[in-house]
């Protein structure tokens, strides 16, 4: 262990790569999530539960159900994502890996983005993939299934990104759960409105491309801004 040599190398030589840091963090996170398989299924179970409860609370009337299906599926997906947010940084905060993440030489925003991508891959993506199954149960017209999946894919990524800001702001607080929902829900409303609205338009047979593009724009905006805001929030959460 010749510190002198390595030290000089570190200063003059190339720095660890951005992509190397991103992919290492992403693969570590996915591995962690798959190691806790029961937690992995939680958002999906919650999603299915809400969708099952609504017909029971209303009526088994397929015209009624199909008219509320877009909104219902979207609200259920949104709540499932919200439920999973609290754990996004909490464990890392407790065991100190969050501290080390912020100390890595790579820009913090990029590493936070890797965590968010891992979160989306294990919550938003599976939600979008199983949504047609539940949509069938709510008699959503078949021709709008692809639009439903597409809006959920785009929208849930936006939800993960915005939610990361809230999770980062509340990670240092002992009881941050309810507060997290209060902070995040107003910010989620545009995604919900455009997501569910686009599916409704698809049912009516109206053109949906502009609204899908708009959802893509929201995703792009949050992709640019949210990781950095979350990184700043994480820094202050560790300070406080």
């Amino acid at each position, binding site marked *: 262990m010749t510190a002198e040599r390595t030290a000089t190398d570190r200063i003059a030589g190339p*720095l660890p790569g951005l992509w190397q840091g991103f992919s290492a*963090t992403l693969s570590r996170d996915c591995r962690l999530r798959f190691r806790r398989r029961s937690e992995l299924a939680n958002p999906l179970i919650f999603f299915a539960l809400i969708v099952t409860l609504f017909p029971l609370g209303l009526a088994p009337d397929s015209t009624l159900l199909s008219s509320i299906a877009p909104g219902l599926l979207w609200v259920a997906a949104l709540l499932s994502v919200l439920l999973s947010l609290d754990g996004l940084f909490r464990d890392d905060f407790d065991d100190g*890996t969050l501290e080390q993440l912020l100390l890595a030489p790579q820009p913090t925003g990029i590493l936070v983005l890797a965590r968010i991508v891992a979160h989306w891959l294990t919550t938003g993506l599976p939600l979008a993939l199983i949504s047609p199954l539940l949509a069938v149960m709510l008699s959503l017209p078949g021709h709008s299934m692809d639009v439903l999946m597409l809006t959920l894919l785009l929208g849930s990524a936006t939800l993960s990104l915005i939610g990361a800001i809230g999770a980062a702001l509340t990670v240092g607080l002992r009881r941050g759960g309810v507060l997290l929902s209060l902070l995040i829900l107003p910010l989620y409303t545009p995604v919900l409105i455009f997501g569910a609205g686009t599916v409704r338009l698809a049912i009516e047979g109206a053109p949906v491309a502009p609204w899908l593009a708009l959802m893509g724009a929201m995703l792009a905006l949050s992709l640019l801004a949210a990781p950095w805001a979350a990184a700043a929030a994480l820094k202050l959460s560790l300070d406080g």
Partner: protein
Amino acid sequence: MQLETRKLGCERDERWLFSDLDWQIGAGELWRIEGPNGSGKTTLLRILSGQMADYTGTLLWQGEPLSRCRETFMASMLYIGHRPGIKRALTALENLDWYQAMSAVKEGGARARRDACFQALEAVGLAGFEETPVESLSAGQQRRVALARLALGHQWLWILDEPFTAIDHDGVRQLEAWMTAHCRAGGSVVVTSHHDSGELSPASGVLRNLRFDGLGGVHVDR
């Protein structure tokens, strides 16, 4: 190669923990930070390691403000805090491999990275436990996983907050030996410790002290 503070001060909620601290950490120096609880030891370490931007004065890394050379500084600094920074659900090897990926330049790809991790784990006496999930290791062993990062040996400056907690006698001896060797080889160490003496002998010739008096004053060995 040094880290320097000029008129460094830190105020939390209208209370000054310390102020006007002029201090230089040069090559081959081992600094021990002493002081009563709540006097600002950990805060100082967190500022030095670039985690807290909430201070007055300037922090220079090789004569350059820290904010301007964050990347090179973070690549040459290793910080271990109260929390070990180890994922309990992952194995010791997986934990170390992540750190290696974050800090090391790609040299020979994933294979070389794993080899380095194996060697480091062996150096802290965890040979044979590489593939065990950390949560099934003992508290002392878990701490050793974190300390194995020192053996990966990339960083010039080590900042260690209470590294001796939960380690047995032999482990303490070994850690001391590493710290001294690191300094002899031109590295630097900043360490806080509740232990009075014994583990870090002044006879090594590298030890210096920085002492908080708990009333906002700081005394630096010259």
